[in-house]
């Protein structure tokens, strides 16, 4: 993330929350969750295909 972008981001965040915008951990957590969903979905899709 560029410095400028980061500044803009902070400026905007002040409107929504005061606590600051650092939600990197949250992002990684939800991405792990998303990865789990995608993996299990394709797992069962694969089962569907081999059982056709």
């Amino acid at each position: 993330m560029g410095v400028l972008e980061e500044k803009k981001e902070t400026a905007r965040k002040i409107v929504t929350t005061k606590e600051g915008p650092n939600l990197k951990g949250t992002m990684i957590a939800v991405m792990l969750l998303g990865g789990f969903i995608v993996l299990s979905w394709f797992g069962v899709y694969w089962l569907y295909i081999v059982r056709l």
Partner: protein
Amino acid sequence: MMNQMIVDRNDAKLSMAHLFIAFAAVLLGGIAGLLQTLVRSGTIVLPAGIGYYQLLTAHGILLALVFTTYFIIGFFYAGMSRTMGKFYDQPYRMGWLGYIVMTIGTVLTTIMILLNEGTVLYTFYAPLKASPWFYIGLTLFIVGTWLAGGAMCHQYYIWKKVSHKKISPLFSFMAVMTMVLWFVATIGVAVSVIFQFIPWSFGWVDEINILLSRTLFWYFGHPLVYFWLLPAYVCWYVIIPEIIGGKIFSDSLARLSFVLFLLFSIPVGFHHQLLESGISPFWKYLQVVLTFMVIVPSLMTAFSLFASFEIAGRKKGAKGLFGWFRALPWKDARFFAPMVGMLIFIPAGAGGIINASNQMNQIVHNTLWVTGHFHLTVASSVALTFFGIAYWLIPHLTGRVLTGRMHQIANLQTVLWAIGMFFMSGAMHTVGLLGAPRRTAYTTYQDNPDALGWIPYEVTMAVGGSILFIAILLLIYIITDLAFFAPKGKEDFPIGEVAEGAEKTPAILENWRLWLGIATVLILVAYTVPVVHMIEHAPPGSPGYKFW
């Protein structure tokens, strides 16, 4: 804000009356559940002429309808009283009336199940025909919930008039939204029971349109699961942030997600009828697409929750990417039980997406996978969250406290539940993929090799079920203690505050007419053509059968 810190004593009584029945249902339903796992694994044979399916009907009704609904209504009364103030006279009286009507219905239906006159499972699919009193009991139950919803809406209405506020407290908004969803959803099942099942079971008409009855049931059946889930979301959005010493991440986004649930959780019932004749693949797929829309607010919820954890943790000085995760109050039972519920919602949700994926439903439909799935959703995510609420709500209402020792016992309860469910639900998911059917007593299909291969998994289910049953006994111990024996004192009713400086909530989010209007349009789009076809292109109806 008229923010009372304590729930009014009379409102507390109304709420507690509901919670007692809820937890009595958990105990009875839990006994049934344990016996089911023991029967299915071939460990025991039921004594005294009790049938497996009779037990399963009781388990489904007691846990999926009685426990959930009574708990939800009791929780909402308390929370609305806490955030809007004491219930006004009229809604208060309506609340008690609803309780009485619901309870008469529950008792009537239970008696019919005990008499073996209603062994049709909690989905009562026609043309299996129960005693008319079974259906009348269910009708009274639903009418009772309408009175309860009416009481809440009336309270909300008076509050808005008196306070001249455009935006209601978040808790109350969510409670009213959940009950509005319930009103719209129950219309389907009420129409079916009143106009199809009751006349047919009394013999006033000879035949019933099966496909229509199933469609009306599932028009209700999917929003039913959101009716269970939304109160858990209320806890996650509104209560958990306060318990962890944080703030509500965004009031507007929380409300928006509830609006989206109202819009998209109803026109999706066909995802339970994907493998049925008489509905064209186009309409099935259309409802699958709408089903996927309802996943979006849950994705929003996941982000909001993690965000409120991260923000709270960082405020307390947690470092690194995941320091905030460790900084959460893991020893606090009010947090731990719902948090484990939230984590379990990850595999639960993933499974739900698979179930709804059109033809992929052929892999899982009516197998034990599905049973494994909803023991993660309603019987873990929702149930653990409700238990976590009860741990502070009951002492708050009875003027007692949740002691440190009780925190520990409650956390043990949660751990046991998670372990038991890991074994039971895990085995159910796996053996379901291998093809083992749900709702089926012990069987090997004449020693069929495939069916014999399922038995080790069914034994694992029984192991998990036994651990779960111990957890239920522990739960009942905790609830009894908190209601009658815990030390007197003042237990908090935690209600989170919105992060300071958060943007003002747009009033459009409380524009009921708008949202109900859009919901109606979506329902009409998703259902009109296929339902008209179902009625015009109906085969001769079916007489009733009593095959038990």
